[in-house]
């Protein structure tokens, strides 16, 4: 059976072999720590770009009306049916990727009309809704709390609405496939989004009832109480207490 080898491969092989032969390669005593740091730094830089390259290779989602491309790992998680007044909406997680043996859960979520989502292929999903990014993922509670709660509880995504969350949330209520979107449509959508902060706060209070009042009093007390040096040190070393969860966290590679 003939073996096909490219001429360029042979040339590279000869160069490498020649370089490794001792008469040519003079031996220098190189500091191991410096060598390690060189290798570490170049691996660090390559790693950063490699993660972006993984996002390019994996499945992708394109917000067509906003000219935004994001990577994605999972499919749309849940959706509602249309009525004669409101469109059926869908929860679309994105921001993760899956390439070869490496995958990251979706960190972000968008809520858009289900009819504005179209699969061009298994790898590429198109969204024809103006999905406005929200200031904080918590605001998704105000505009579509049913989806926000299920996204937070889901073990498929790492989406969360904590204060220092790195998640991104988008919300779109219009569908460009049904009719051209006017400025008035977008103004109305923005109006809904812009007052979502207050509603999110009210939902937070209303959902836990009297506990909200107790929490507020505790907050007042803790704001006046000084933490001891030992407690601060303990929190620094062991971190604050968190509940055990199977939910993926928001680190890049898991």
């Amino acid at each position, binding site marked *: 059976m003939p073996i096909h080898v490219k001429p360029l491969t042979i040339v590279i092989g000869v160069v490498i072999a020649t370089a490794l032969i001792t008469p040519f390669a003079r031996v220098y005593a190189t500091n191991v720590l410096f060598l390690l*740091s060189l290798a570490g730094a170049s691996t660090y830089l390559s790693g950063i770009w490699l993660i972006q390259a993984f996002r390019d290779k994996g499945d992708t989602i394109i917000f067509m009306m906003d000219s935004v491309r994001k990577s994605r790992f999972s499919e749309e998680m849940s959706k509602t049916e249309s009525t004669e007044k409101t469109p059926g909406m869908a929860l679309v997680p994105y921001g993760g990727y899956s390439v070869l043996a490496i995958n990251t859960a979706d960190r972000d979520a968008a809520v858009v009309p289900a009819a504005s989502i179209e699969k061009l292929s298994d790898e590429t999903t198109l969204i024809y809704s103006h999905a406005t990014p929200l200031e904080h993922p918590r605001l998704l509670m105000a505009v579509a709390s049913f989806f926000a709660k299920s996204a937070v509880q889901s073990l498929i995504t790492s989406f969360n609405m904590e204060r220092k969350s790195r998640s991104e949330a988008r919300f779109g209520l219009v569908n460009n496939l049904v009719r051209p979107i006017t400025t008035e449509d977008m103004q109305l959508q923005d*109006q809904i989004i812009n007052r979502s902060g207050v509603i999110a706060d009210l939902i937070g209070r209303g959902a836990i009832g009297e506990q909200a009042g107790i929490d507020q009093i505790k907050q007042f007390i803790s704001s006046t109480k000084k933490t001891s040096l030992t407690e601060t040190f303990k929190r620094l070393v062991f971190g604050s207490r968190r509940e055990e969860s199977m939910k993926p966290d928001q680190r890049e590679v898991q």
Partner: protein
Amino acid sequence: MLSRYHVMMFSFIIGLGIAGSYAFPLATWPIPWTVIILILLAALVSGSLAFAGAARFASEMLSCENMRFSRYRGQKTQYRYIFDGVMWWVVIPVKGWNYLKTKINSAGNPGIAILPARLLEQESPYFPVGRVMMYMLTPGAISTLARKRVFGRLFKDLNYAPDGKTDVFFGFASKSLHPDVEHMTGSYELETYAGNLASSAIDLRRVSDDLQTWMKSQLKFWNQIRGSDSAPIVARRERERDEEEER
């Protein structure tokens, strides 16, 4: 992408290595200089490949049914339209990239994608969609295509030579083409959605006010207890009882 934090970390690791080499000058490894060069070359190549991959993710993109192509935006990157006597075709330069974050680009598109113009869909120039299956043409297939005069002229205009430097992709046969009417489900009365949210906000405001009132009364009650004459006695008895229970 590469932020200031990443550059800082990179410098920190190198700095650590330099500091380490001064602190432990005897920790050496006899190694041929050619091996060091090969290691550095390998790092450079892997870094470049990773960089190009990251750049593609940050670039414009032509999405087709079975392939995606990044695009370089710059001079001579406009679409071309050609008519073969039956239908219009669009020719899109592809496979380049712009990495705006790092201010570096590929300075050209080393490939072209040819597809029926009516199957090209574009909401914005950044993410066009080709509703076709794309196939990469071999030099033989390209010469066959070039026999048709319009395509022959196209390849001549593009200075195409079958040297493997320019990839040519040809698209036809759509699987995903469908009428937009399939998406016309439900009604989009934004006022209804806004109205629903507004009414739930009013409801929640009432709940919040109730909670506020409840909290005020609780605080008032607490102040009354703390302010009463018997409060210190009650507090002392409570403490003694707790201590006894602990024992």
